[in-house]
């Protein structure tokens, strides 16, 4: 748990909008304070029927109003208690389909808001959270009255946060949405325009919302550099009518909807069709995983190295909110689609490279939390993973145990011995320097941080599935 989550603390990411902020009350409950300047906008959201419309459609996070005595500072006029989500994920951890869903949700919210003569004052991807496979808008303070004729102030932000990474993922490479981790306010449009292939100039939406807008930004930057006054004479005659604004939103929606990522097989996406398990082994591993989870009864499970989520869905079916991490974007994409198809709404698939997990970033390293700060999970599943970290990435077993102990209370972990065909594959092109990679050493190293509760062989293999409990628990 990070310091911003301690009782009484203001959420360190909640400072840009002077209209209010999110804080953790002394009672451990998450609150949002609404300051005097934003109270009228909030009342309008509630009284206009927009809140009921959006929450009724599952687009906006629900909240209750809390007594004013819970406010964090004198500036507060209203305090609300939003429904809290079990895990907050970030856009740079989403797959293509998740980012696309989040973009479409933002546009739907803005279109609905316009019907009620309100408007989104920002369009940050961080306003969206995933509740399992369903995106939901979480910033109740993002609404302001719509002023007839005004352009959409959040238009550039929408293009930077959503359209640019989606276009780059679709036309260049899905991993390019990783740029969102470097550019916290979205990918600069000049950069996106440079990186996109020339043929995207022929796509009307991308031409307008990325290339021409980027050109205009370049021109504007030149003008400011040359200190030439802005010519506003032509603009005084023009305004962005509501029809034009709806047209622009419709164009953005069409552009986003038409963006598709290129389907192809990656190193891991056909893993289950191409691994060393027998059917008997798979069944045994599933049975053991279920039995271990039954014993620990977790509320939140993190499945590390989840692949396409076969085992995540076991945890989810048992009622645990399951966050399924994998470093392979295609696996995360498949997991997301599969979980959607099977209507499991408590699985959240995310892209994460465990050898380089999401760090704490943003202002003072406190705006976006590291993976560890978002834990600990009740139970971690680390199936067919340890050999990749220990041998594939040279991490000593003791360090793996130490890190996992910071992430969870219970650990379901599979030990894959050195003579296993998958481990041998990792050693194919390198010298075997891993003399300490043995079952005995594994148990000794993990024994420092965990109590071993169960150890059972997986049928048809030399692999062993352990259930452990953190000694700090």
């Amino acid at each position: 748990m990070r310091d911003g989550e301690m009782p009484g603390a203001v959420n360190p990411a909640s400072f840009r909008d002077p209209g209010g902020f999110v804080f953790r009350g002394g009672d451990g409950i998450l609150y949002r304070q609404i300051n005097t300047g934003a109270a009228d906008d909030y009342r309008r959201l509630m009284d206009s029927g927009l809140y009921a419309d959006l929450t009724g459609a599952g687009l906006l996070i629900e909240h209750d109003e809390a007594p004013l005595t819970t406010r964090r500072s004198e500036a507060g006029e209203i305090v609300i208690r939003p429904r809290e989500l079990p895990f907050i994920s970030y856009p740079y951890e989403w797959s293509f389909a998740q980012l696309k869903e989040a973009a479409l949700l933002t546009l739907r919210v803005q279109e609905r808001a316009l019907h009620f003569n309100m408007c989104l004052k920002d369009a940050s991807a961080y306003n969206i959270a995933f509740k399992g496979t369903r995106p939901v808008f979480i910033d109740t303070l993002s609404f302001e009255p719509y002023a007839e004729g005004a352009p959409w102030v959040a238009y550039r932000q929408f293009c930077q946060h959503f359209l640019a990474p989606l276009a780059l993922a679709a036309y260049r490479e899905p991993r390019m949405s990783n740029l969102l981790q470097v550019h916290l306010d979205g990918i600069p449009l000049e950069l996106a325009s440079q990186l996109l292939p020339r043929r995207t100039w022929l796509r009307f939406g991308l031409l307008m919302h990325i290339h021409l807008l980027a050109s205009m930004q370049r021109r504007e930057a030149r003008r400011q550099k040359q200190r030439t006054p802005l010519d506003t004479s032509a603009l005084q005659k023009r305004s962005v009518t509501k029809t034009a604004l709806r047209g622009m939103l419709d164009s953005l929606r069409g552009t986003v909807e038409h963006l598709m990522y290129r389907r192809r097989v990656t190193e891991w996406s056909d893993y289950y069709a191409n691994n060393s398990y027998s059917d008997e082994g798979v069944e045994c591993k599933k049975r053991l995983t279920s039995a271990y989870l039954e014993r620990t009864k977790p509320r939140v499970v993190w499945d590390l190295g989840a692949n396409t989520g076969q085992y995540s869905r076991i945890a989810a079916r048992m009622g645990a909110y399951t966050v399924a991490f994998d470093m392979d974007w295609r696996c995360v994409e498949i997991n997301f689609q599969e979980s959607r198809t099977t209507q499991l709404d408590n699985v959240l698939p995310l892209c994460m490279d465990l050898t380089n997990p999401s760090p704490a970033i943003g202002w003072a390293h406190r705006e976006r939390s590291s993976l560890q700060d978002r834990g600990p999970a009740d139970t971690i599943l680390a199936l067919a993973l340890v050999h990749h970290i220990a041998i594939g990435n040279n991490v000593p077993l003791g360090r793996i145990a130490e890190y996992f102990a910071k992430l969870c209370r219970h650990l379901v972990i599979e030990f894959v011995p050195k003579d296993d065909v998958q481990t041998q594959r990792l050693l194919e092109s390198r010298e075997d320097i891993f003399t300490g990679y043995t079952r005995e050493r594994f148990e000794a190293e993990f024994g420092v941080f965990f109590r071993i509760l169960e150890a059972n062989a997986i049928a048809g293999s030399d692999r062993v599935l352990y259930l452990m409990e953190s000694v700090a628990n």
Partner: protein
Amino acid sequence: MRSHRYGLGKIAVAAMLSAFLWPGTAHAYLDGGTAALLFQALAAGVFGALFVVKMFWARIKAFFRKLTGRTPRENDTNA
């Protein structure tokens, strides 16, 4: 002297863009970006016209569907 002129120019631009032209954006905490705001004003006609044509076309299609008794597709209601 130049920086003074520039300062006044900047204030004038901000006032024109946020308060005079579009009163609703005067208190927005987000910087919409001068270029993005201007771009919308310039492209408004294009987006507006395309949208009107799209809606008009959807109505024509809906009319003929009604005549032939076919039910409209979900997408057409968005147009």
